[in-house]
C-alpha cells in the first residue's frame, strides 16, 4: 500500500474531511456537511459521500453549474455505493467513483491529469452567458479528454435528451436553449455534429413530453369514434360496421339485403375507415394529429412542432483553440488594431518582462486591464470598419495618457491589456482611474444608449510565473 494519508495542519476545516495523498488534497463532502461549493476551491478534488442519489445529484449539479472554472472544472468523485452512479446525468458529470479510501491512489492520476490540462485553459470569464457556456463546455471536454460530447437520454429532461455539462446550467423549463448553444457552436466551427436522433418539441416551451392524438378536423375534439366501412358485394350496400351489427351480436347481417356476411374478401370487404366526432358529429377520414404539451398545455398540429436534431459532437481544432484562448462572440480580429500589439507578441514581451523583473529583483512593472462591458453592441452598430476606428481611437487615448514605454494589446474586442514598466502599483492604478474617466466620457458622449461600462484592474508582476498565469490572475481577481 502506497497510500499515505496526512492530516493537514493549515486548514481550519475538520481534519477528517480532508484526505491528503502526496501533493493532492481531497475534500470528503458528506451528507451532513453544510459547506457550499465556493469554499472548496482550494482543494484539488472533492469526493462526495452519500447514500442518497438525490443529494449526490444536487451536489454534483451545484459544482458543475458554478460559473467559475475553479469550481466547475473541479475533479469530482463519488465514494461508497458505486451503483448510484448509474444515473446518466451524474455519470456524465463526475470523474469516477471509488469504493473506499484505499482506492484513492487510482483517482490521483485522474486529478493530476485534469489539473495539468486545466492549466492550459484560458481562465477568463466571458462577459456573456453564452460565452460562459461555450467556455465551460469546451473546458470540461478538454480537461476530461472527452473525444465526443454525447447526448444522454433522460426522462427527467424536458426535451428527453441532455448534454450533462450543458444542461445543468438551465432551469428545467429552459433546457430547450441548450440546442441553440450547440447550434451556435457548430455554426462557428467549434464543434462538429453528427446526427443521432430527432425530437419534436413544443414550440412554446420546448418540452418533448407531448401527447399525440387524432382530433376532429372541424372542432378539434379528441373524442372520435373510428368505424370500419363494410361493402357487401352482392347488393352494393356500403356503410359503417355498426350498420351490419345492429343487434351487437357480432354476426354481420346486411341491412339492405338481410343476408349474413360470410368471408371477408369473398362476399364483403372493408375498403375504408371513417371517424365520427362524438362532440360535433362531423364525419371524416383524415383526422389531423395534434400534439398536446404536458408541460404548458399548448396544443398544436404536429406540423407546427419544432423538429430538433439531436447530435453527437466532436471538438474541432478551432474549438480546442478557443478552449485554450478564450471565446469571444465578436467577429473582430483584435490582432490588427493600429497602435496595439497582438496577443502573442504581448504575451512574449510579458514573459520577458517577468524574467527581467525577477532578475532585477527591485524592478516594478504592472499589468493592467480595461474591461469594456457591452461594447459589442456598439461595435455591431458601427460595423467592422467603424469598430476598428473606435478601437484605434481607444488605443490612441491610452497612449496619450499612460506615459512611456507602454505596451497595449486588445486581448479580445472587449478588453485592453496594458503593460506598464517601472511604475508602482499605486501609479498604475491612478493611470487606469483616469483612463476609466476618459473612456466613460467618450462612450457617454458618442454612444449614450450603448450601455458600455468600464472597469479596470492592475497588478504587479510576480517573478517565476508566466504570462498565462498573470492573465489568469488578472481575470480571476474579483
Amino acid at each position, binding site marked *: 500500500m502506497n497510500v499515505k494519508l496526512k492530516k493537514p495542519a493549515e486548514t481550519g476545516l475538520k481534519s477528517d474531511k480532508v484526505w491528503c495523498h502526496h501533493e493532492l488534497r481531497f475534500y470528503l463532502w458528506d451528507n451532513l456537511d453544510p459547506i457550499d461549493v465556493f469554499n472548496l476551491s482550494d482543494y484539488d478534488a472533492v469526493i462526495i459521500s452519500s447514500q442518497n442519489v438525490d443529494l449526490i445529484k444536487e451536489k454534483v449539479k451545484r459544482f458543475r453549474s458554478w460559473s467559475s472554472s475553479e469550481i466547475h472544472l473541479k475533479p469530482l468523485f463519488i465514494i461508497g455505493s458505486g451503483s448510484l452512479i448509474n444515473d446518466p446525468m451524474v455519470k456524465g458529470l463526475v470523474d469516477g467513483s471509488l469504493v473506499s479510501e484505499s482506492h484513492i491512489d487510482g483517482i490521483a492520476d485522474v486529478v493530476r491529469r485534469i489539473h495539468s490540462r486545466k492549466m492550459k485553459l484560458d481562465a477568463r470569464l466571458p462577459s456573456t452567458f453564452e460565452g460562459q457556456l461555450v467556455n465551460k463546455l469546451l473546458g470540461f471536454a478538454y480537461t476530461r479528454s472527452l473525444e465526443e460530447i454525447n447526448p444522454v437520454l433522460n426522462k427527467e429532461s424536458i426535451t428527453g435528451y441532455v448534454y450533462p455539462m450543458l444542461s445543468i446550467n438551465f432551469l428545467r423549463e429552459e433546457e430547450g436553449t441548450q440546442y441553440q448553444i450547440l447550434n451556435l457552436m457548430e455554426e462557428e466551427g467549434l464543434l462538429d455534429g453528427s446526427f443521432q436522433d430527432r425530437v419534436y418539441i413544443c414550440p412554446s416551451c420546448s418540452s418533448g413530453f407531448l401527447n399525440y392524438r387524432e382530433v376532429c378536423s372541424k372542432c378539434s375534439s379528441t373524442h372520435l369514434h373510428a368505424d370500419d366501412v363494410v361493402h357487401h358485394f352482392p347488393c352494393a350496400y356500403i356503410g359503417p360496421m355498426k350498420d351490419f351489427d345492429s343487434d351487437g351480436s357480432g354476426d354481420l347481417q346486411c341491412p339492405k339485403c338481410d343476408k349474413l356476411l360470410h368471408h371477408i374478401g369473398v*362476399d364483403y370487404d372493408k375498403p*375504408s375507415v371513417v371517424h365520427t366526432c362524438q362532440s360535433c358529429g362531423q364525419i371524416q377520414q383524415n383526422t389531423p394529429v395534434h400534439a398536446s404539451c404536458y408541460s404548458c398545455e399548448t396544443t398544436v398540429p404536429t406540423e407546427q412542432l419544432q423538429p430538433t436534431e439531436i447530435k453527437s459532437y466532436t471538438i474541432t481544432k478551432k474549438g480546442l483553440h478557443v478552449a485554450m484562448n478564450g471565446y469571444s462572440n465578436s467577429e473582430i480580429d483584435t490582432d490588427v488594431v493600429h497602435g496595439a500589439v497582438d496577443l502573442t507578441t504581448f504575451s512574449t514581451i510579458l514573459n520577458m518582462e517577468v524574467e527581467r523583473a525577477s532578475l532585477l529583483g527591485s524592478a516594478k512593472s504592472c499589468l493592467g486591464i480595461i474591461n469594456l462591458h457591452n461594447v459589442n453592441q456598439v461595435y455591431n452598430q458601427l460595423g467592422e470598419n467603424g469598430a476598428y476606428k473606435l478601437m484605434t481611437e481607444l488605443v490612441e487615448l491610452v497612449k496619450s495618457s499612460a506615459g512611456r514605454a507602454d505596451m497595449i494589446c486588445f486581448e479580445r474586442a472587449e478588453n485592453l491589456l496594458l503593460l506598464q514598466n517601472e511604475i508602482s502599483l499605486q501609479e498604475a492604478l491612478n493611470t487606469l482611474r483616469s483612463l476609466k474617466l476618459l473612456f466613460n466620457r467618450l462612450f457617454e458622449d458618442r454612444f449614450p444608449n450603448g450601455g458600455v461600462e468600464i472597469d479596470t484592474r492592475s497588478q504587479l508582476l510576480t517573478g517565476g510565473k508566466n504570462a498565462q498565469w498573470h492573465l489568469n490572475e488578472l481575470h480571476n481577481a474579483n
Partner: protein
Amino acid sequence: MDFVTYWNSLTWEKAFRIYWYFFIFELTRFVTLEYVVLWRWKYRRRRDRDKYQEATFRLFQEAPFVSIIVPGKNEGKHIYKLAKSLQNQTYRNFELIVIDDGSDDETEKICNTLSKNGFIDLFIRNYVRGGKASGANLAFRYSKGDIVVHLDADCSYSNDAIEKILVPFYFEPNIGAVGGNVQVRNESESLATSLQSIEYQNVIGSGRVVTSELGIYRIVSGAFGAFRRDILDRLGGWDIGPGLDGDITVKIRKLGYQVRFAPDALCVTSVPNTFRKLAKQRRRWDKSLIRFRVRKHKDVFVPNKAFQIPLFLSFVENVTFNLILNVKWYLYIVDMMINFSNMLGTIILMNLILYTLANYFKLIFFAPFRTSFRESWLGQVIYVPLSAIYTGYFLRIVRTYAYIAELLFKSSYKDPWNPGKTSFYAKARRI
C-alpha cells in the same frame, strides 16, 4: 339520272312497301309522335307558368337540405372546378360529398386539400375499389340531405342547374326522381363528338321531354339526377351497375313514384372523341338494356299486383325500339336483299335521304323545344347527313354486337367497369 327516274316512278304504295321500316318507326314514332307531344308539352308549360313559379318559390321557402354526391375513380382533377361552379349555384343549401373509389392517381391528395379548405364538405376514400354503385351508396350513407343529387365530376353545370332539377319535386306531387339534361361539351372536337352532340340533343334534349311527357321516361342520368332520400332509403341505394341509372329509375317507378325530366337543368359532359372509344362506351350501355329490362326487371311484363301500365309501356317502348327494332332492321335488310336485290344500292341511298330529311326536320322544327347552352343549331347543318349513317349503321352495329354478346354470354358481368368481386355476385343472383 337513274335516281330521278326511280323517284318519279315511285307510287305511295310502292314506297311504303320498300320503305316501310322508315315510315312505321322513324316517321311515326320519332318524328310525328314526338312533334305532337312536344307541342302538347309546350302548351302545358305555358299554361302552368304560374304554377312553376310557385313551385320555385316553395322550393326556396322550404329550402330542403340537398346532398350533392360525386362518386368516382381518378376524378380528382375535375373536383376543384366542380366545387367552384357549385359555389355559384342559385340554390345554396347543399353539402358536397366526394367519394374516391380506389383512385390510383392524385385524387386523394387533391380532395384532402379541397376538403381542408372547405370546398368539399365530406370526402371519403375507399382504399379498395368497390364500383360506381358502392361509391354512390357510401356517399348516400353519410349524406344528410332530404334530396340527393348525383353528379359526375367531369360535367359542367349551369348556375341554376341545381335549382331547376329540384323544382319538379315541388311542381307535381309524388315525384321520386328528376333527371337533368346532359349535353355535349366537346362538340367541335371531332366528327365523333359532333355526331354525338346531335344524338344527345335528339335523344336527351327533346327525346326525354317526350318520354317524360308520356310518363315513360326511363333513365335518370347518373351524370345529373336528383332523388328523394326516403325513396333511396327504401331501396337501399343503388345496385351494382352497369346500367345502375336505369335500374334505380325502374325501381323508383315500381314503388309507384313519378320520374320527371327537367330540360332546363342543364349540364354538359365530354363525350368520347373517337369512334373506337365511343363503340366501347356504347357496348356497355347497350348490354345493360338486356341485363336490366329483359333479365332483372322482366316482372314488369307480367300482369300482377305490381303491374303498372306506364312502366309496362316504358319497357315495351324501350325494348321495342331498341332490341326488337334492331332485329327487325336486319329482317328488313334481308327482305330488301331477297326481293329488291337489283336495286339495293338505290334503296340504301334512298333510305339515307329519307332519314336525313327526317333529321333536318327535327333539327329545325324541334329547335324551339330544346334547351341548351348552344346559341344556334346552324353549325350542325352539315353534320346531319352523316348523322343518318351514324345512327343508322354505326350505332346499330355496335348495339347488335352488344346484344348478342350479352344475350349469349352475359358478357357485362365480365365488364372491367365493375370490380370482379361484385360482378361475381351479381351474376350468381341473376341481377
